[in-house]
């Protein structure tokens, strides 16, 4: 073997790596030193305030930003109505994230070899586009319209609603109608992690597995998904106390009564309630505790079909599911920790993908209503408005499997995400974040090995470096 060639190759590769890294470092420094931009997200432009006013680090809201949102995107100084804005003002902002990311999965079912493989992909990419149009139609009438696309440019309407604020001159009476995000204290729409594995809360979207390799398909739901319906929300003037209740169509936010992947389209209704209270502890900051509950139901078979295709909105055999939890948001000056306990329960019919028209006789032997517990710990260290470090650990543990034959830990999840966001400037015109993140998720026994027939774990991880910008 010609060792000198190998050494030269290694040296060249090492030198090339050093040059590449130095170039990236220089680019990074150059970008840091760039002048502040002069474009603008909608509210910052309207009110002339830096994004750091409403966001501890965008998109995470500060208490002031939360109050602004709860007040119907209004400051409350009789200058909120559009009539006070320059006619040229248009309440619109856009957000997108070009990035480089690496995705890795263990135990992916493939046609080759043993039928299971570890798959790694990576490359430059970009996320979907959010077009954020939000503001006021008149004093105490606010709106939200958010066309949103996936990375292919396929658009859907992420949010469409009108809110009547401060009815009867009371901050306790605000009514919103349309498609909107549930009043989740831990907002998934304002999540600080963006990678494929870290861009959502596992607890918000978990549905128990019917059996190894068999996912629940009886309904689609995520408590972090925007829903369609009506919301009453009330809050104290200083926003320390917040409460809301919603009546929603059981469609997981889909239009035309389409329930997505369910067994039957639905015309059922669901409910969500949440309440929280913040209190000051010394000079540590505002601490907030709260609770929430979602009462859902999903149809299990179509009452009418046409050409064997279910007619939307005519599903029958409603079966219940619910989610509930408690949340605490603890501030220790620059460090804050969000803790959440989560409980989920599905009807036995939903948990086993079984239509309920045959009654319990139609259920598989040894079937149960599945239930589970979950927890979330998310920490942020806000070094300053330009730098935030994020860490999150989530776990989900099944307490009752849908079938006796299932492994006890089928579907259990552990998810770890950490990263940081650096904002090279803070302005009232635009925002840019250098987004750096690693996320890994372990799901227990959900894959069935094609060769052994035994359930094995699925591990997925993401590494992401992105430029998250809004203007």
């Amino acid at each position, binding site marked *: 073997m010609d060792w000198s060639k190998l050494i030269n190759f290694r040296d060249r590769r090492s030198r090339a790596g050093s040059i590449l890294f130095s170039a990236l470092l220089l680019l990074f420094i150059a970008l840091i030193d760039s002048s502040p931009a002069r474009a603008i997200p909608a509210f910052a432009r309207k009110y002339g305030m830096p994004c750091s006013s409403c966001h501890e680090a965008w998109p995470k809201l500060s208490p002031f930003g939360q*109050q602004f949102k709860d007040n119907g995107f209004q400051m409350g*100084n009789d200058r909120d109505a559009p009539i006070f804005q320059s006619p040229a003002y248009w309440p619109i902002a856009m957000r997108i994230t070009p990035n480089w990311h690496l995705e890795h999965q263990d135990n992916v079912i493939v046609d080759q070899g043993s039928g299971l493989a570890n798959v790694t992909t990576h490359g430059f990419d970009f996320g979907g586009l959010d077009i954020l149009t939000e503001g006021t139609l*008149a004093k*105490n009438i606010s709106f939200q319209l958010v066309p949103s696309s996936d990375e292919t440019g396929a658009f859907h309407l992420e949010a469409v609603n009108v809110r009547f604020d401060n009815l009867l001159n009371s901050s306790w009476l605000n009514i919103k109608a349309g498609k909107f995000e549930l009043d989740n204290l831990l907002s998934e729409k304002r999540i600080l992690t963006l990678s494929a594995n870290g861009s959502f809360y596992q607890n918000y979207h978990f549905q128990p597995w019917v059996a190894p390799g068999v996912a629940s398909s009886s309904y689609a739901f995520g408590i972090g998904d925007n829903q369609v319906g009506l919301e009453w929300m009330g809050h104290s003037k200083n926003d320390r106390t917040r409460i809301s209740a919603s009546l929603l169509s059981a469609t997981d936010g889909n239009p035309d009564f389409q329930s997505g992947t369910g067994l039957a389209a639905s015309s059922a209704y669901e409910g969500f309630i949440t309440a929280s209270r913040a209190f*000051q502890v010394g000079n540590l900051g*505002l601490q907030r505790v709260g609770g929430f509950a979602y009462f859902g139901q999903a149809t299990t078979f179509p009452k009418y079909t046409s050409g064997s295709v279910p007619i939307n909105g005519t599903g029958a055999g409603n079966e219940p599911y619910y989610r509930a939890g408690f949340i605490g948001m603890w501030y220790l000056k620059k460090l804050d920790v969000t803790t959440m306990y989560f409980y989920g329960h599905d009807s036995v019919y939903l948990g086993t993908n079984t239509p309920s028209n045959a009654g319990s006789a139609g259920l598989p032997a040894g079937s149960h209503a599945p239930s589970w517990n979950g927890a979330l710990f998310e920490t942020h260290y806000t*070094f300053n*408005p330009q730098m935030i470090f994020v860490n999150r650990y989530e776990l989900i543990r099944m307490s009752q499997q849908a079938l006796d034959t299932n492994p006890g830990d089928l579907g259990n999840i552990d998810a770890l995400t950490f990263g940081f966001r650096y904002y090279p400037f803070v*302005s009232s015109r635009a925002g840019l974040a250098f987004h750096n993140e690693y996320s890994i998720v372990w799901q227990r026994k959900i894959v069935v090995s094609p060769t052994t027939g035994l359930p094995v774990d699925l591990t997925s991880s993401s590494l992401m470096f992105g430029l998250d910008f809004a203007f």
Partner: protein
Amino acid sequence: MRITKFKGIFVSLVAVLILPAALPAQQSDQAPAAKPNPHIEAHVGDVTGHPDAGSDLYYRYCWGCHGARGNGDGENAPYLNPTPRNFVAGIFKCRSTPTGTLPTDDDLYHSIERGFYTTTMPSWITLTAQNRADLVAFIKTFSARWATDKAGEPIQIPPEPKLTVESIKHGKEVFQKMECWKCHGQEGRGDGPSAATLTDSFDQPIRPYDFAQGTRFKCGTTNQDLYKIFMTGLDGTPMPSFASVIKPEEAWDLVHYLRTLQVSHASPELALWKTTPEGAAFLAAEKVRNTPTGSGLAP
């Protein structure tokens, strides 16, 4: 060699991680003010505000309008009307202290808490009491006046006398005698003969308060706040102090009358005034209706 390579990558990664954190906040084209004087404090009730803590808050929430140096020239100042307060000048509208004096810490604290009606300065009620006190302490570091002058003594506000029709009528006489109408207009709509010519102490055009549209005042919402406004004056604006020319009992009569000019705001004074022929005729002439902004009068 392998260890050296990993060491290099590790050092570089640490550099990338640490570098941004070590950089000063680049929040505007302007350099922030020098480190605040730690000896300047704010005392509001039993809360003591510290400028160091206030500095962090100021450069999170306030600098966009009030500027990195507190002189009111933040990046949004050119687009705001009225322009943001220049803290360096040390002149404040809303005070409980006589004209020409510095406000108390309480005055500044409540200004931050309340916000300013019909301006872009919002209420910062969501900040904690400690936060607001810290901001007051930091704001005081911008002007040299705080190092040389003490805050004025708050004026004494006598108890409010009983509301009567006579009190309102006498207040109307005071309104005429003091020529308040020259700026505010006979109906209090801010359209007096001098209104179009008014400027503040920074030569910026300024409009008199429109009682007919307003439900709140810049410096508060209560009758006591209204009393303070014309007895202390709004420094830096053409609104003078009337403390030397109006007796306290006359001042209360004026308060009662001014309340009746707020025809879009339900008040005991307005309700009483409606019962008189003069008041009823005045209100009948006003066409109160909802405007696109949600309240106010038809032009």
